[in-house]
């Protein structure tokens, strides 16, 4: 027996598929904690389809938890460490505007992820070929993290240094320092989250990752507890934005990949049900 659950803003959908066919139930989503609706949905499907939940072999899940955290601006307070002199990369962006003739356009770079006061420059520099031009100022990293944690009360740290995708040693060392200074602080390194060339885009993805990281890890922890309680032993598989599933452990390495989890699952499901001629309305 396989179970798939998608949590939407209004309803939580549960589908069970097994040798005897497919059954689906709908329960109201919970405004306060999406996991509550999962528990209710599992109880409903167990009853409707007469399933022994301990026999579930596969559990697949799509969620808009990360998406909603971004849309409602309820992600973590993020501190961002950047190469000194490039703290404003997140804010300056690519400097192009999507609406050329809109004089009142709001800023298009996601400054809300880490306002300028929470971005600190670190003296260090790696060149285009990966060689170290200036070594990492480890004391500077220590001071910056302390300031961000103690004064700005950050809940997650994003680190994006220039050319870290060529030589990740400075970012990795920064994580070690963070682990010593603030052991509980979740850290997203650009060399792991999106190890690609172009500093603005890499900074953006890394900052988004830090922004949704505490939300996703708390959510997956509560989900795991609910599944254990109802007796589901199958590992959690989560839909990613690109339309493939990954284990919960993989999602926690790069939570940003779940940003479009819900919509991606919907599109894939629609393709299966309606082949090529389907219009999906979410």
């Amino acid at each position, binding site marked *: 027996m396989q179970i798939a659950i998608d949590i939407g803003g209004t309803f939580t959908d549960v589908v069970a598929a097994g040798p005897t066919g497919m059954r689906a139930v709908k329960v109201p989503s919970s405004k306060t904690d999406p996991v509550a609706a999962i528990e209710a949905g599992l109880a409903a499907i167990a009853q409707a389809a007469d399933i022994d939940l301990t026999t579930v072999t596969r559990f697949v899940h799509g969620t808009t938890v990360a998406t909603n955290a971004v849309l409602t601006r309820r992600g973590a307070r993020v501190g961002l460490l950047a190469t000194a002199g490039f703290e404003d990369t997140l804010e300056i962006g690519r*400097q192009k505007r999507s609406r050329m003739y809109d004089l*009142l356009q709001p800023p298009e770079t996601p400054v809300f992820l880490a306002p300028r*006061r929470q971005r600190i420059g670190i003296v260090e520099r790696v060149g285009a070929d990966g060689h170290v031009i200036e070594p990492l100022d480890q004391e500077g990293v220590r001071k910056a993290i302390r300031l961000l944690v103690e004064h700005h009360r950050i809940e997650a740290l994003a680190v994006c240094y*220039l050319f870290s995708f060529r030589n990740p040693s400075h970012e990795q060392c920064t994580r070690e320092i963070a682990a010593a200074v603030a052991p509980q602080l979740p850290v997203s390194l650009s060399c792991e989250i999106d190890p690609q060339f172009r500093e603005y885009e890499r900074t953006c993805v890394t900052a988004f990752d830090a922004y949704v990281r505490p939300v996703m890890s708390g959510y997956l922890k509560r989900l795991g507890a609910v599944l254990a309680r109802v007796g589901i032993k199958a590992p959690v598989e989560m839909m990613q934005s690109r339309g493939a599933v990954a284990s919960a452990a993989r999602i926690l390495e790069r939570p940003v990949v779940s940003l479009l989890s819900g919509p991606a699952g919907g599109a894939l499901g629609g393709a299966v049900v309606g082949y090529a001629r389907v219009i999906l309305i979410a």
Partner: protein
Amino acid sequence: MGCAAAGEPWALHQHAFGGMGGRPGADGLPAVSFPYNVRNVSVEWAETETPVLFLRRELIADSGGPGESRGGLGEELALTVERTADQLAASPLTLSGSAGRMLYPAEGVAGGRPGRPGSIDVNDKSIAPTSAPDVKFRPGDVVRLRTPGGGGHGPPGARRVAAVQADLHDGYVTSAAVGEQYGASMLKGDASAPTARRD
């Protein structure tokens, strides 16, 4: 632009944008391509393709014109060309292009004040402001481009205190400039708040 010792010429076409003017009800966007609309060159691209090394690309505090809506901040780009034997043999290097608002700032409107004009200097020595700079420099020299800030919209005295305080916290303005441009009353009670960034 320059020439490597091997004879291979190179050129970097780099855009640097000033701040947008303050708008009714909204501050000007910082360092943005306006009113035209093109994308910048990423630092990592420029350094991968040319011998240029960027030292800085950041917003300039106090460059936005004071106003009820503040003008957008200009940006500072500092760059050099690595002093390798190759580059030294192949010098000189030339910085050329078009620049605006170096002589006259972007004016404010409806009582807003002008933004800070742009400037170009080499090793901290200003070049004469001109709309068509053509500057020779050598490997190891530091070229600094500072783009102009946008003009303010509406009288600075009408700016919300909370907006000035937020600007202070984010380092978009310094407390010295706030006292001068917006009045000491805007600093009340919070002048000592840490701005965090340069600690």
